[in-house]
């Protein structure tokens, strides 16, 4: 971690210098080997010295060294001498069968080159329509087609057998011939040599029985680094015959947080100035692995303090904060906590009476009690039904009035009864019958093909985005087309019979085999990551899927559930995006993720138990105001991350603050935006503040991005102004209850109690001195009614109103 190292003074064969691999074997198919050299400092920290140590070969005729990469020269045995300061390690080195260049296998040798050079990427020849007449399968998922494209298409003009280097394929890649993609290949590279040899060997496809790639190992898997630190990654491919091949330079690398750590395409990570966590994804031929990089803040200059703990969540978050050198913000004030609690859990502002009552409550456990109170409010079901209606595509345009109404009503009922999550999900997964009577049947109208259902079910309930694998191997995950269509198979054979009044009768007529489109290859129906296909002939296959999906052993179900709840309350998922769970997108706090998932299972998926646990933590009750130490942190919950009120919540908040309910066409008087089942109800307000279109099983459809139209609307719209100034609204009513003449300035006490009231209903707190001064200035200028309205306007437009803090 510390870049300046105290060199040991005695010359030893040291246990403090570790060279990987410990035993180097170079052979025909592994002609090069990247070394990874790690120094273990006196305080047991690991430091990568790969690019700072000396590497020599005892017998230079056997192998040579360039940088930290060894290359075979001739068969024989010797050793590599690696020294760093006074430390030295001797690593045995053997070269076998290197005279014979082994037969090249197109799929395992040439396709990786096309991936590494970017030829088959989605922006180039991997595009659906190819690029300039040359089309490769994206990320090389179809080597057969790629072979034909290179060797046979365009009358074979891409290859020149008798002079490999003059082949158009090589000439374009080296940009000796004009190439839109520029120069991708250097003449002195191993990739060039491979391509050249392959053409020279007569373009072999390679043997059917050639060893298959079965795994990818990386080292290290996790490392703590400081600003400017570098870390080499060693990537090793494992083949079915046990052969290992160094693919450190043949893999593709990507960082999910480039401001924290960048990575080069030869696997060298470099940490930047920002602290935080980064996951480095390594992809070699559809095999993926991840290296987690933690970059703490520079040392605190003091011992890490003991943080107060309410429950296990605080211990787990605290451990990560300590690791990252982050100090949490102070505890949220009572009013900050109360407004946050109401808005996060029930999408509703506390009333002025509720704020006063809370402030007057002297019970040290009042937050615990009020959490219970809020969880029992009727708005709870409204808000969570809205949230799940977004995810489960409850779109009136697609489902019709009755379908959308019925599905929404059913969802609301699940939350009203606090039905365990796995139970209601099972009911959705196995729904049959009349869409006008059984709400969840409409799920099969919103997602109306096996493909759409595979995508939606895996993303909504497992947090696994498998849709990439519909067309090609998932670039950052293990999923292939057979996984995708294996899952889709559970929904094959569903029948949707149209009924009168825009309803559908849904029945499953039993298992039907599935094939992958285009190739027509049959594919076994099986859950994600399960190799053996279950027996589906006895029942509706969806029952088998539901058993697997909702079981306690499912690797994603509980985590996805817990992660969604965490995100709703804390503003950022432990895995983010919250529905993109994969090896290469690790949780920023995996022990906490695992703990919450286990809690969900132990609580039998009772949502309120989990919410209660999180709400009672210190972490949830931390202030949103950052300190100097933690203001850059957006991953580890050192402070509460502010968020804008969602569209419906904001509209309701304006209505409740002004005391003038919104009227929605065709809805009963007093209906709140939170309760709307009709997501297409014309509403300029909801439209511009980001009501989602509900066409993707993703919370990302709900936009909280600010726009100019929003700012104009809230500050200038007649609709908002008329609420503020309504004769039956809060201000007019309040003024009518006092005896004084409102054309005169109010008595100071009266005036201040009106100002207090406006602050309480909008911001959930009493005014600060700035707000009092502003209010007094307004009241000094205009009559009471107008001044109060101006103050209400100011509050509604303030950050403290628009954001949950």
């Amino acid at each position, binding site marked *: 971690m510390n870049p300046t190292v105290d060199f040991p003074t005695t010359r030893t064969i040291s246990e403090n210098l570790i060279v990987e691999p410990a035993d180097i074997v170079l052979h025909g198919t592994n002609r090069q080997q990247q070394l990874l050299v790690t120094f273990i400092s006196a305080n047991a920290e690991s430091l990568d010295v790969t690019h700072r140590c000396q590497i020599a070969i005892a017998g230079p005729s056997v192998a040579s060294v360039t940088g930290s990469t060894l290359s075979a020269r001739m068969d024989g045995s010797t050793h590599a001498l690696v020294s760093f300061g006074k430390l030295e390690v001797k690593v045995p080195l053997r070269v076998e069968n290197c005279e014979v260049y082994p037969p090249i296998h197109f799929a395992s040798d040439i396709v990786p080159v096309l991936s590494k050079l970017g030829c088959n990427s*989605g*922006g180039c020849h991997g595009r659906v*329509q190819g690029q300039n007449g040359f089309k490769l399968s994206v990320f090389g998922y179809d080597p057969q087609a790629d072979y034909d494209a290179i060797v046979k298409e365009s009358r074979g003009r891409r290859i020149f057998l008798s002079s490999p280097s003059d082949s158009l394929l090589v000439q374009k890649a080296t940009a000796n011939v004009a190439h839109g993609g520029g120069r991708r290949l250097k003449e002195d590279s191993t990739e060039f040599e491979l391509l050249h040899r392959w053409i020279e060997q007569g373009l072999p496809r390679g043997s059917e029985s050639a060893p298959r790639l079965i795994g990818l190992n990386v080292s290290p898997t996790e490392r703590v680094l400081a600003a400017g630190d570098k870390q080499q990654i060693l990537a090793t491919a494992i083949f079915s015959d046990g052969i290992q091949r160094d693919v450190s330079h043949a893999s593709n690398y990507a960082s999910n947080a480039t401001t924290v750590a960048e990575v080069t395409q030869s696997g060298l990570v470099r940490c930047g100035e920002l602290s935080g966590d980064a996951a480095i994804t390594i992809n070699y031929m559809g095999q993926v692995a991840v290296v987690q990089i933690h970059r703490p803040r520079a040392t605190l200059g003091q011992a890490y303090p003991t943080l107060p703990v309410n429950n296990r969540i605080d211990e787990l978050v605290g451990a990560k904060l300590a690791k990252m050198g982050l100090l949490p913000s102070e505890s949220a004030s009572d009013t900050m906590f109360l407004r946050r609690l109401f808005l996060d859990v029930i999408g509703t502002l506390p009333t002025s009476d509720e704020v006063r009552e809370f402030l007057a409550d002297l019970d040290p456990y009042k937050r615990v009690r009020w959490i219970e109170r809020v969880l029992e409010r009727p708005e709870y079901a409204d808000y969570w039904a809205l949230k799940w209606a977004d995810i489960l595509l409850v779109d009136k345009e*697609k489902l019709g009035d009755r379908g959308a109404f019925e599905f929404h009503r059913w969802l609301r009922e699940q939350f009203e009864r606090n039905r365990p999550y796995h139970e209601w999900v099972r009911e959705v997964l196995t729904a049959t019958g009349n869409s006008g009577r059984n709400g969840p049947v409409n799920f099969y109208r919103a997602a109306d093909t096996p493909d*759409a259902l595979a*995508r939606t079910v895996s993303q909504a309930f497992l947090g696994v*985005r498998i*849709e*990439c694998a519909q067309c090609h191997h998932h*670039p*950052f995950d293990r999923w292939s087309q057979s996984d995708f269509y294996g899952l889709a198979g559970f929904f094959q054979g569903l029948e949707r019979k149209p009924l009168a009044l825009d309803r559908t009768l849904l029945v499953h007529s039993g298992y039907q085999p599935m094939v992958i489109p285009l190739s027509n290859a049959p594919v076994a129906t099986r859950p994600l990551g399960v190799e053996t296909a279950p027996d589906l002939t006895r029942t509706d296959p969806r029952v088998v899927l539901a058993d697997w999906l909702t079981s306690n052993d499912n690797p994603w179900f509980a985590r996805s559930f817990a992660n969604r709840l965490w995100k709703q309350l804390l503003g950022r998922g432990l895995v983010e*995006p919250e529905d993109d769970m994969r090896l290469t997108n690790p949780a920023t706090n995996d022990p906490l993720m695992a703990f919450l998932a286990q809690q969900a299972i132990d609580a039998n998926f009772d949502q309120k138990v989990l919410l209660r646990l999180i709400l009672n933590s210190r972490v949830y009750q931390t202030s*949103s*105001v*950052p300190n100097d130490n933690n*203001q850059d942190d957006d991953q580890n919950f050192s*402070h509460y991350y*502010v968020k*804008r009120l969602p569209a419906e919540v904001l509209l309701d908040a304006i209505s409740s603050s002004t005391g003038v309910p919104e009227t929605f066409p065709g809805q009963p008087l007093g209906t709140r935006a939170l309760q709307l089942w009709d997501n297409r109800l014309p509403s300029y307000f909801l*439209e*511009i503040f*980001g009501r989602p*279109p509900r*066409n993707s099983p993703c919370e*990302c459809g709900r*936009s*909280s*991005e*600010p*726009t*100019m*139209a*929003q*700012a*104009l*609307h809230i*500050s*200038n*719209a*007649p609709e908002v*102004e008329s609420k503020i*100034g309504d004769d039956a609204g809060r201000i007019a009513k309040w003024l009518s209850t006092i005896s004084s003449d409102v054309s005169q300035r109010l008595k100071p006490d009266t005036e201040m109690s009106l100002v207090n009231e406006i602050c309480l209903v909008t911001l959930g707190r009493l005014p*600060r001195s*700035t*707000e009092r001064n*502003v209010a007094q*200035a*307004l009241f*000094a200028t*205009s009559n009471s009614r107008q001044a109060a309205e*101006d103050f209400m*306007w*100011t*509050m509604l*437009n*303030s*950050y*403290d109103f*628009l*954001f949950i803090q």
Partner: protein
Amino acid sequence: MLPSFCDGMDRRGFLRVGSLGGLSMAELMRLQHLQAVEATGSSSAKKKDVNCIFIFIIGGMAHQDLWDPKPDAPSEIRGEFSPIKTVVPGIQLTSLLPNVAQVTDKLAILRSMTHGDPDHTAGYHVMMTGVHPGTGPAFNRTTTNNNVHPSLGSTVAKLGRNDSSLPPYISIPNFLNSGGPSFLGASCAPFVIEADPASPEFAVRDIVLPEGVTSDRSLRRQSALRAVNAFERRVEAMSKQVQSLDTFYEKAYNLMTSQAAKEAFEIGREDEATREAYGMTSLGQCCLMARRLVESGCRFVSIENGHWDTHRKNAMSLRDLLVPPLDLGLSALLRDLDSRGMLESTLVVVTTEFGRTPRINAMAGRDHWPAAFSIIMAGGGLKSGLTIGTTDKQAASVIDRPITPADMAATILSVLGIDPQTVVHTPVGRPVQVGGGGRPISELI
């Protein structure tokens, strides 16, 4: 006077700052820095940005009855409009376009547009984004307010330089199907006027103060808000969201207070002769409004004009209702831009979701025809006074130089200074080119 409000500034000073963007100097510099960072394309900042007026003819514009006459075809194909000469020797239009015929030297006719989808919704999408919506996950033929790929206007809002106080992407008189930002998010959505500038009551939503709020009162409110929010500046760093809302508030505030910006929307400031020249029709006045908006720095104005789905009484509808406003509006727009020296820096596009069938049907109408149709491009430094591509004798299929919607998109973006190969990522992380993988039409550039 209210000392705690205006930072000691009198009202006039306040407005003067307002016209600078309503920002403090530091904020202004921050904003300009951001824009400089965000600006893509040409490195020569001196070159004037090209803005776009994008006229979308909704329903499907009969190419053979306007832009691609086939006088030698049998009568059930050629229709009833005879060809007329234009100011460009060798280019003929139909008799429906007498005014455009006088400015044909200022425009290019692309006669070989082609895509395969006869569906309106898919047609809007492919012609407004360059990308066919396909049968991808988000696609739903009844979906009207969302799309699979960002519209060209949204792409310009995202990637284009924008230093005006107007929104970068404005849509009049209505929101256009498939004109949305898709995954680029709400900040790239069009600012929709939702009012017809031809109407005497025309007003733009939310930019004028609501009834009962005088400008003095509004100033008091704005000052109060600044004072209250100033407290938050201390913690502004806590959220990028707060910061960007801050920017939008300042821009909105500027729009409300800046006379110049607000005047852009006041079509009544044009003299009667100018308004008449464009035609007192929705399309005509939208064209005039669009000119005012690009003049004030809006980067992309889209105009929607409906009712062109002429399955019945095609010729009558075109002659009596639909084409005259376009003929007048478009020709006036090109002349006006030219005389103001704005034609080089304004790209005008007239496009549609598809053409119409060669053969006139039993109801004297023409049906959907996506295999071959025409669109218009003018200004923006493009070559003009030419046609590109040809169709066969029945205007039924492209026989030379097919142009795809992606090529159209790539052309528009590159004229506006955006590399059409710029890659953006969909929510699942798939990289896609903003221009849909098309190539700019080299004959025009």
